């Protein structure tokens, strides 16, 4: 009996603890409820030199400050600094004043900028080393000014000055930025255990980011009040369900992340333009968007959206026309049904889209075999050209250089992202001239990619949350301004 009493007491204490919400007191002595943000994937590294995953990049934007950001037309705009092009290979950078110090109270100056960019080229495991290999040297003039000297002219160099600046003394000490980041951005790192805890510098507001893999569980946590905010990564039916719930607000916006089908143009069948056109006409994009995508998803024409300064709004979408697709396949000398293998990841939404594509292509005489592979295997196959068709999304692309990297004859991996081994002299010439209108038109005609859509962005908030809206590239910049009302 005594044992059961003790057990009961433990249960009561545990249950009462359940209702307790930890509060963090800020430097102003005010107490804020932490704002909880549930993510499908936690950031892997908080070091700007090595991070490549979307979650890490989005958090890094908040912890560190870059020299340059992008305006609404995706042109470089001053963030921490302004710039002046002295010659084709020289850029003078002037840091703005006053500017925020690092979170460890050290002032940020030109030597930190130099140390950051030098560190990228010196780090063995930095995926960015090649991107910045064109920097010959960096000369610091004073606390506010420095000059980047390039080996070769690069008209897009300013758009590359987006790396978060790190403090030189810590770089010299080989500080572990991946786990203990120190930047000068609006959010400062507090701790990382099973959650990543950040503190807003301006008012001490605590923001807790936790990984919750399962989309249904993320929704349940939001409805239970355990999380205050979700963004993206939910199937359309769950978003529609949440739109019916009065206790949450669903905010949507257009997106700019480009989804496409990649084709292996060295494949004997897919090397024929008419076959590629047939596949483009065998997909009913509007139906797919309506059924499995969120609001504001737009049919895509090119990698960069029409509002981009290098965008092309005149590209007409390929309509769904199975009869025309069959005719094109026959004209290409293909015997029907044409059997193609489509590779995708194991992500449930990706597999669902693949299944719908399979059904849509059947009346066009295309028998699509779906192979769903774990990410490592799938991506290695894509990089090595071991595919006929695959589905992927370009996330956060801002500069038109992507066209050369994805389609230039010389950009086959590891020299670029031309995974489909596409080769077209006319396109190469247009890309060399940076004729973006001509290049995007040519890509649209030649179809090394079958364009699908720019997925709409959305965020779901508790009623107590305000000052947060989804952004076209899916960034989380509004965490710098988000506010929560007390319950």
């Amino acid at each position: 009996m005594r044992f059961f009493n003790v057990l009961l007491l433990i249960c009561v204490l545990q249950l009462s603890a359940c209702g307790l919400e930890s509060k963090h007191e800020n430097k102003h002595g005010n107490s804020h409820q932490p704002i909880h943000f549930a993510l499908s994937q936690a950031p892997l590294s908080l070091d700007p030199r090595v991070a490549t995953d979307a979650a890490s990049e989005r958090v890094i934007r908040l912890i560190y400050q870059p020299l340059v950001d992008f305006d609404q037309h995706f042109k470089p705009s001053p963030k921490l600094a302004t710039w002046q092009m002295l010659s084709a290979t020289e850029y003078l950078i002037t840091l703005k004043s006053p500017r925020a110090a690092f979170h460890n109270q050290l002032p940020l100056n030109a030597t930190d900028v130099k140390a950051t960019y030098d560190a990228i080229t010196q780090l063995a495991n930095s995926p960015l080393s090649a991107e910045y290999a064109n920097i010959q040297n960096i000369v610091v003039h004073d606390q506010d000014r420095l000059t980047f000297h390039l080996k070769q002219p690069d008209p897009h160099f300013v758009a590359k000055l987006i790396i978060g600046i790190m403090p030189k003394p810590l770089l010299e000490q080989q500080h572990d930025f991946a786990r203990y980041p120190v930047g000068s951005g609006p959010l400062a790192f507090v701790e990382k255990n099973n959650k990543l805890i950040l503190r807003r510098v301006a008012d001490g507001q605590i923001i807790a980011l936790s990984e919750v893999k399962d989309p249904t569980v993320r929704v349940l946590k939001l409805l239970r009040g355990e999380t205050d905010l979700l963004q993206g990564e939910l199937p359309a039916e769950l978003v529609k369900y949440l739109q019916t719930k009065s206790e949450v607000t669903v905010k949507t916006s257009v997106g700019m992340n480009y989804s496409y089908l990649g084709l292996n143009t060295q494949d004997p069948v897919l090397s024929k333009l008419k076959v590629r056109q047939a596949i483009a006409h065998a997909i009913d994009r509007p139906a797919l968007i309506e059924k499995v995508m969120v609001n504001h998803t737009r049919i895509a024409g090119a990698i960069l959206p029409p509002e981009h300064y290098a965008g092309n709004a005149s590209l007409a979408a390929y309509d769904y026309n199975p009869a025309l697709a069959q005719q094109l396949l026959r004209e290409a000398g293909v015997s029907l049904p044409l059997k193609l293998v489509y590779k995708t990841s194991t992500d449930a939404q990706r597999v669902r889209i693949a299944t719908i594509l399979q059904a849509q292509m059947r009346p066009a005489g295309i028998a699509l075999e779906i192979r769903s592979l774990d990410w490592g295997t799938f991506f290695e196959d894509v990089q090595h050209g071991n595919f006929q068709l695959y589905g992927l999304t370009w996330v956060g692309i801002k500069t038109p250089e992507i066209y050369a990297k994805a389609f230039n004859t010389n950009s086959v991996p590891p020299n670029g992202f031309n995974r489909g081994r596409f080769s077209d002299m006319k396109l190469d010439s247009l890309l060399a001239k940076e004729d973006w209108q001509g290049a995007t038109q040519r890509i649209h005609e030649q179809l090394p990619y079958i364009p699908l859509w720019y997925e709409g962005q959305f965020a779901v908030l508790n009623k107590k949350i305000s000052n947060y809206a989804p952004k076209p590239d899916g960034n989380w910049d509004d965490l710098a301004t988000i506010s929560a009302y007390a319950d």
Partner: protein
Amino acid sequence: MGIIQRLTSLFIVIFGVLLLTFLLIHLVPGDPVDVMLGESANMADRAALRADLGLNQPLIQQFGHYVAKLMQGDFGQSIHTQTPIVELIKARYPATVKLALLSLLIGIVIGVPLGVFAALKAGHWQDFVVTIVSVRLSAMPAFWLGPVLMLIFAVWLGWLPVSGMDTGTSIILPAITLGFGLSAILTRMTRTSLLEVLNDDYIRTARAKGLSERTVILRHALRAALLPIITIVGLQMGSLLAGTVITETIFSWDGIGRLLVESIEKRDYPVTQACVLIVALSYVLVNLLTDILYRLADPRVRHA
């Protein structure tokens, strides 16, 4: 089998697991260098990183280095986060053990009494109901049962947290999710095992001696029926300690199962190897413990 023989076989098993894991993970497509550097890195950077990670050495040499470091208690570092693997294991394994023990407890507390009850009521409607319930429970996958429990106990009733590890009560729902499945297996095993024993001569003798039914069941029948139950409990405990990936993922429970899957996705070879080693060790040790319990439960095994 003597203790020395047991330990020898344990080492052989562990070495076999190490070798097999090492070879398999290197045969699987996907390269940690690709994952870390992406597509745009040039060949020189790739080669430099490959050399830095020791991946340019022959496989047998890599394996030799790995085993040599392991002998000194050094699991190495995560390729991706550069975190010492011992730290990762220390952070994750206790959570898995905690969840496994509570799940097992729930399974035993529900399963064994229900099994005894069903055996005693064999052929009656109560037996039928227990059988139906246990079949239903064993047929419920964690990815379905977990969210249903969350919906009922967290969202509707508001008694427990949906997921995470923030409070002491966070463990209840994942433990129930795992424990229900286990209890169903134990119910059926206990029922079957007890029914076999209840027809034996010595049970009839015990009853003829005038012992109470409670004494006959608890002291004579159940003890004899324990052997297959111990086997099942041992095997299930081994599985639970291996990390129940789906349950840990659904409930955001930072255990060894999730760590293993994440490391496989990222081709973080040293972490995968360490996780598999820990899982294998757990399995072997639990089996050893099961054998010891066998001896305690059944004198025939002890004297064999």
